[in-house]
């Protein structure tokens, strides 16, 4: 017996503990959603009440009206889609080359790829800004997409996935006359579906939630992404209309939470294998 908990009492105690921690972890989200449906004056009431007397769904319509958060949600969606498609394409190609093809300098190049993961983003932030100035990409969504479609993480993830499929399948296809590119897209790619799903999940999380880089490079309200829109909303209404700030937060947090509910496995696996979402 390897178990730490042996008696039913210990197990019950553990369950109670897990439940309390779970409540503590999930409570802020309940608070956020419940408060987003309140009158502003009810949020600042002492002692506080969790649920609104009468849910005020109109807060959502109002927040979409008073700040361009609808446009900003759309901007985030465009950026997320662009980065995700980019990650899938570049990582598939590069991952396959590293996994299956032989070329001079392969191992050295792969080490260099991994080395990029060690450099903190703050080291790149000032020069990146200046590069964007030179490219005239400042305050444009392209600055949030193109620089981020090359990823050493994705290459690493897809390389592992391609290495795990039996070589014989690809060799059979090549004997049948399929070229290298044909083999990649017709034989190998369909077999790495789970890795692609994991990568897409990570790209989605990473770009939807990104904040530091947009903060530096985007300044027009109509071009900002939703995380920036939230900070503006907070600056505008923190003193007077908390319900609108929390309705905005709910709108910004909901997409990743819903996606997580639907595809929990890929989120947990993706994060556990790469450590990316820790940022």
């Amino acid at each position, binding site marked *: 017996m*390897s*178990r*730490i*908990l042996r008696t039913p009492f210990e197990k019950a105690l*553990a369950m109670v*503990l*897990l439940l309390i921690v*779970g409540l503590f*972890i*999930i409570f*802020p*989200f309940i*608070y*956020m959603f419940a*408060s987003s449906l309140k009158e502003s004056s009810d*949020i*600042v009431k*002492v002692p*506080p009440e*969790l649920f609104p007397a009468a849910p005020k769904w109109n807060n959502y319509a109002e927040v979409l009206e008073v700040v361009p958060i609808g446009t900003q949600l759309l901007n985030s969606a465009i950026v997320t889609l662009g980065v995700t498609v980019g990650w899938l394409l570049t990582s598939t*190609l*590069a991952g396959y*080359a590293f996994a299956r*093809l*032989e*070329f*001079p300098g*392969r191992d050295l190049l792969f080490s260099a790829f991994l080395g*990029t993961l060690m450099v*903190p983003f703050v*080291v790149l*932030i*000032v*020069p*990146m800004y*200046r*590069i964007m100035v030179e490219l005239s990409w400042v305050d444009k969504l392209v600055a949030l997409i193109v620089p981020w479609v*090359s990823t050493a993480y994705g290459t690493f993830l897809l390389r592992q996935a391609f290495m795990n499929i039996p070589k014989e399948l690809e060799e059979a296809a090549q004997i049948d006359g399929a070229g*290298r590119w044909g083999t*990649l897209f017709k034989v190998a790619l369909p077999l790495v579906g789970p890795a692609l799903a994991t990568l897409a999940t990570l790209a989605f999380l990473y770009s939807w*939630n990104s*904040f*530091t880089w947009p*903060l530096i490079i985007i300044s027009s309200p109509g071009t900002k992404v939703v*995380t920036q829109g*939230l*900070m503006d909303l*907070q600056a505008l209404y923190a003193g007077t209309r908390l319900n609108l700030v*929390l309705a905005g937060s*709910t709108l*910004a*947090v909901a997409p*990743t*939470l819903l996606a*997580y509910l639907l595809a*929990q496995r890929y*989120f947990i696996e993706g994060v*556990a294998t790469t450590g990316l*979402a820790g*940022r």
Partner: protein
Amino acid sequence: MTARKRREAFDAFSMLAPTLLGLLVFFAFPLAYSLVLSVTDTRLFGDANFVGLDNYVKALGDPTFHRALGNTLLFSAATLVVSVVPALFLAVLLNEKLPAQAFFRGIYFVPVVASVVGVSLLWRYLLNFDFGFINYGIRELGKVLGTKWEGVPWLTNSNIALISVILVFSWKTIGYNMVILLSGLQSISKPLYEAAAIDGASRWQAFRSITMPMLSPTTFFVLVTTLINCLQVFDIPYALGWTRSSTAGPADSMLTNSVHLYREGFINSQMGYASALAWVLFAIIMIITFVQFRMSNRWVNYE
């Protein structure tokens, strides 16, 4: 090289081209450029001059940099304890055969996927002195215990604000660390425990002499990645504490190195200085990580 090999290399580099090009233009070049900027007095606009190591000398004597470094180190050390220890505890409990294990794992992971800015804003209200739920809970607890507790000025007192950053960061990352530690626990082979049980080991002996050493590589991974993330922390202190007068929290009490760098580079337009600050931070991260690796062979069990 034969024609076939040449053809293969050509295909390989064609496949690598998009990634290589991206990493050259948006990684390798800015990396080198950053080093160049750090020895100039580059500002947002206008000409730049070579200033040698002045920026680095300035950083080492800059009281604001010292403040930011102190905050960052204190934050990181505290977060290692406040995030990793509960994560380990939860992982051990979830590794037991309890009902609803997957449900709890799923719940604990929710903050990991949520937008940092979104959750930081709602924590601003939860931690509000007057109407926040956290102080409400503290006052109610005080009543139960028969004393009068006023509540804690979480975000408004410069001695306490950093604690709030630690709490929110830990709340956000416990689930992540827990998932990694749990997968580490699940990969420890069962026969080890069976052998220990036959030898009459108590459960605590088994935990100390099997679980802890077998888990140590995973624990080490969690400690290293958490520390690296902590030392670079930007968005939580920014979203919790940034003010219109460009301070981070009351009296800069939430100023971390990354926030300091952002302020110097993009608010004060000192881009050369900000680049030097970035390299100093990079060096500090490298040194701390190196020390962690050196110390690891004393306690991490590599098979």
